[in-house]
């Protein structure tokens, strides 16, 4: 068993996210931490998990992590590759995705996400890339997992723009908008696991990663953090998990590292 000194907070975040996935899941995967987490799950406890990238690749099993959501590796290892309109109509809107992964530039306590602008939409301080698939991933997937590194400028009291809808103002806000899916059910950060309160839907810390204190969590979060009455400690990465993740990253580095044309 690895110990605290053996892994980074980022590694813990990725591995904790991987553990939340099961063999029967059909995941809509984004680039970065979600992609690593989904592929670690596939290479450890969930070999039959179905990974879908919005570029149209269904059932991919890349040997290395893709650089983008449309890498050739994803297509070459996929069961099939469909057009992007079909991906969004039949596969996402069709309700076939069990878990959608989202990242966030800004996140609030109800799992609402901003990746559009910092500041006013029409006079932005920073123009971010935008929502991409997120607005419909957030409402069409059966549930949504959010991954992000904790920081006060990211986890904020009020987001500047509602790129994708989580639990809105909390409670039954989703149902009131006619949304039938669960929305954010898990937030995986580099410090902790959070789940929405069953009633209020406010994200609540249910498990802290090894060595993390309540103060660590609070000082990197822009809202007053609620901790579960039954707070657990996240089991540290196993040897297998850590080795799998690191080998995946090493293969990825070797594959993509020095590539450059004339």
């Amino acid at each position, binding site marked *: 068993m690895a110990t605290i000194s053996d892994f980074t907070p980022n590694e813990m975040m990725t591995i904790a996210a991987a553990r939340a996935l099961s063999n029967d899941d059909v995941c809509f995967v984004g*680039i970065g931490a979600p992609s690593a987490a989904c592929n670690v799950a596939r290479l450890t406890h969930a070999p039959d998990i179905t990974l879908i990238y*919005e*570029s*149209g*690749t269904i059932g991919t099993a890349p040997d290395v992590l*893709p*650089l*983008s*959501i*449309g*890498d*050739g590796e*994803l*297509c070459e290892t996929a069961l099939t*590759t*469909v*057009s*992007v*309109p079909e*991906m*969004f*109509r039949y596969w*996402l*809107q069709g309700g076939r995705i069990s878990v959608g992964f989202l990242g966030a530039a800004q996140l609030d306590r109800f799992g609402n996400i901003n990746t*559009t602008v910092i500041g006013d*939409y*029409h006079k*932005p*301080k*920073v*123009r*971010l*890339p*935008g*929502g*991409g*698939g*997120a*607005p*419909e991933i*957030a*409402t*069409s997937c059966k549930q949504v997992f959010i991954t992000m590194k904790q920081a006060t400028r990211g986890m904020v009291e009020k987001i500047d*723009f*509602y*790129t*994708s*809808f989580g639990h*809105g103002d909390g409670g039954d*806000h*989703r149902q009131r*908008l*006619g*949304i039938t899916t669960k929305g954010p059910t898990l937030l995986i950060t580099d410090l902790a696991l959070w789940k929405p309160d069953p009633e209020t839907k406010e994200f609540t810390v249910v498990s802290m990663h090894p060595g993390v204190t309540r103060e660590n969590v609070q000082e990197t979060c822009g809202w007053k953090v609620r901790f579960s009455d039954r707070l657990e400690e996240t089991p540290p990465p196993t040897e297998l998990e850590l080795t799998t993740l690191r080998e995946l990253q090493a293969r990825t580095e070797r594959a*993509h590292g*020095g*590539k*450059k*044309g*004339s």
Partner: protein
Amino acid sequence: MAKFQSLHDAVRDNLKDGDVVAFEGFTHLIPHAAAHEAIRQGRKDLTLIRMTPDIIYDQMIGMGLVKKVVFSYAGNPGVGLLRRMRDAIENGWPRSIETVEHSHAAMANAYEAGAAGLPCAVFRGYRGAGLKDVNPEIRSITCPFTGEELAAVPAHRPDVAFVHAQKASKRGDVLVEGIIGVQKEAVLASKRAVVTVEEIVDDFDDLHPNLCVLPHWTVTAIAHVPGGAHPSYTHGYYDRDNAAYLEWDKVSADRDLFMQWMKTNVLEAGPGAFAERVKGL
């Protein structure tokens, strides 16, 4: 009916100042060579449509060709932000641009509706999302059977689409393989379509029947530009040049560096340079 032309002539004949134009490709098969030709020819006041504006849209915006961008995700894929597009939006350099922002689902459906000859796309989307408050082109429609409220956006109907593909046959039919994105829809939704291809082959007689093929009578012009998607990739021909994507992050961070890079690599180069750029990839 597809006409085989030089890329210069195909762009000259099919892209006009003020056009609504889509250079499509979803990470794969990005029509870099065609975009560079548009920059060299100095088109003005273009409205650019694209799900994923990336380096080529950053370049066209930075060179001042663009008055408006319709998009759903503006990023340097796998790297980060689009710095020239940001500079235009945040600081109006070299000119201010208008943006019309959608989700991927909306954009994909809008192309699909355009290909299908419909005036609008109908889908389940934008629930609780902020874009519908800032984009007046996001409206709704009520299902006459269930009463459910669905999202509606106008169909995309560009004046011209540019795409890159693997092969054309001598008759002018075009084959797109691998991650096919929205290219077929973009071509069918547009009044005119220009395709750059890696290769021209005698015929498509041995193809599997269910591939993504555009008949010659749906394509306006074909230009043979090997490597024309560089630094993105062409499935079956060459890989992504990731170093070039990383380099762009630096080049685009500085206006002068950007202008110098464009001069050397675009304004003073031609379509023939692309074949060299993909050697060894």
